[in-house]
């Protein structure tokens, strides 16, 4: 119970979450070449959404992992959030059996395989209370990510009870992961069955925006995942995140301008730019616009932090 809201404040480290979308291999390689020189401390690698996305294969991810490790990054191998087929479990086992890099479990199946060794749990594992976190910590969990629908208040309660040796990570920037399905909604949009999806999700490097009939850009379809169209940004909450002893802030990659997003977070963390000014600039880089409602206890799509200008 070493952490509290009044404890010593260490600046959080920055992490880059896994690429949620299906990008061509060249784009992925270019992206991580950029990341190697960018001011992020931790990089999560791997396909977390759909096992049919094979542009970048397991061996390719390991190569990228080696390159980023050589560039001084802490690499974590991330895993599928929804495991249905045996072939998916086999790929998962391949990731879990290596011990060169930490593994991020995004399903309880992965937690099950990692028991007894160090692992992290991503935001699609439901850690809603301290009793859950304590049990996972006893199995080897070293890091957890706050489920995205939980509030700052709940995080504060969790931090007070956090087991020693467990780091807390918060998704601070990105389209929100809202749901997973057996169904591929991108294939559905193109009238294709999932078994013959032609991996059309490669046409939508930030997901396919779904609007309401009165033209409110509402969701983004990313294969079997549904995301928010709005991009969550918690940078205006940096002081609170620090006070709560959050160890890591996660940025979720987007098709364009991720480098600038990282830079703005980095400069805000080092005090070179104030968070309101940085958030103003971030808003211009978002595919649709900002939201931060969950953090404040409201609907996820709400925007509570006032714009700087």
């Amino acid at each position, binding site marked *: 119970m070493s952490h509290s809201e009044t404890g010593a404040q260490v600046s959080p480290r920055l992490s880059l979450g896994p690429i949620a979308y299906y990008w061509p291999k060249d784009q992925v390689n270019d992206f991580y070449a950029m990341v190697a020189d960018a001011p992020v401390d931790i990089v999560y690698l791997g396909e977390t959404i759909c096992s049919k996305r094979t542009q970048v294969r397991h061996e390719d991810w390991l190569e990228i992992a080696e390159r980023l490790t050589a560039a001084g990054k802490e690499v974590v191998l991330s895993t599928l*959030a*929804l*495991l*249905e*087929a045996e072939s998916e*479990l086999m790929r*998962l086992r391949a990731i879990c059996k290596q011990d060169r890099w930490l593994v991020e479990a995004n*399903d*309880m*199946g*992965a*937690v*099950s*395989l990692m*028991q007894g060794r160090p692992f992290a749990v991503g935001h*699609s594992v*439901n*850690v*809603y*209370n*301290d*009793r*859950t976190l304590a*049990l996972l910590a006893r199995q080897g969990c070293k890091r957890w990510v706050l*489920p995205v*629908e*939980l509030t700052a*208040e*709940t995080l504060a*309660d969790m931090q*007070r009870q956090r087991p020693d040796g467990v780091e807390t990570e918060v998704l601070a920037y990105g389209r*929100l992961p*809202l*749901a*997973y*399905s*057996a*169904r591929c*909604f991108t294939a*559905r*949009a193109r009238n294709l*069955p999932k*078994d013959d999806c032609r991996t059309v999700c490669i046409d939508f490097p930030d997901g*396919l*925006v*779904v*609007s*309401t*009939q*009165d*033209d*409110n850009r509402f*969701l983004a*379809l990313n294969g079997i995942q*549904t995301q928010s169209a709005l991009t969550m940004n918690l940078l205006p909450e940096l002081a609170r995140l620090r006070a709560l002893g959050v160890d890591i802030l996660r940025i979720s990659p987007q098709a364009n301008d991720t480098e600038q997003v990282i830079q703005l977070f980095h400069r805000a963390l080092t005090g070179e730019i104030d968070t309101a000014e940085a958030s103003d600039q971030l808003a211009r880089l978002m595919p649709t616009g900002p939201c931060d409602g*969950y953090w404040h*206890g409201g*609907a*996820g*799509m709400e925007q509570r932090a006032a714009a700087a200008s």
Partner: protein
Amino acid sequence: MELVCPAGNLPSLKAAVDNGANAVYTGFRDDTNARHFAGLNFTPSKLADAIRYARGKGVRVFVALNTYPQPGGFERWQRAVDQAADLGVDALIAADIGVLDYAASRHPGLNLHLSVQGSATNYEALRFYHEHFGIRRAVLPRVLSMSQIRHVIEHSPVEIEVFGFGSLCVMVEGRCILSSYATGRSPNTYGACSPASHVEWRETADGLDTRLGGVLIQRHPKGENVGYPTLCKGTFKADGHTYHAIEEPTSLNAMELVPDLATAGVAAIKIEGRQRSPVYVGQVTRVWRQALDAFARAPQDFKPRPEWTAELGKVSEGAQTTLGAYHRPWQ
């Protein structure tokens, strides 16, 4: 295969019991379960009455405690676990690891089922819950195909229950927060999806708009049947088309798969609908009882009778039914 039927209140419970359920599942009157609706569910004393009634007719009673408590509210879930254990329920259906941990350590004799909200779609996950909490049964999310279900059962350490009929979650249960994105309330945190408190019905010149948390979900022309604005079943625009971008308002009906489910080794079939009326519960239970009995008498000849299908069609959402994920092309 056991028939597990929903009971949102005592009249529904009696309807399920009287029409041939093998077990009924219930919940307490608060956010500890995923059907936290006004006027629904049981106080502990009402549940005691319900258990007496069901037991008298040889029917088992399960209690769903299948939402995810946060630290501030955890005691409420502990109390609910204790109450269920004190009442001697036949099973507690839970999702949250903390709740399962509490239940298993405080009440080692309590029969635990992993709720569909536990979101376990593979046998590696099931092994975790079995090893740590001794769960004896798991309810599978409605995302697996028939062959995937067979495969899970072959490797599962616990018996498997699947949904046979009712409203269809197209998202993997326990990991869908579309509802809280629009309203601040989700099945995980609040025990309700697309909660009625956030629904608006607005007359327009052309008909009726339904909104959830202010978000336009459906636009009904004059004279069209108006459905409940469940978020994932709305009509949206994507890629130049206006359509049910996620799912049509249909119900699951897996009756024709009864022989396949039995062969796969499914232990129990669950009927969705604790929020539905006693009439619904009675009708659906009666039809499914007939079907399961007919299958038991003559497994080779089993085929859903047209009158069963017609009867179930009448109570289905959108009056359409689907085989859902069980039928691979749906995926």
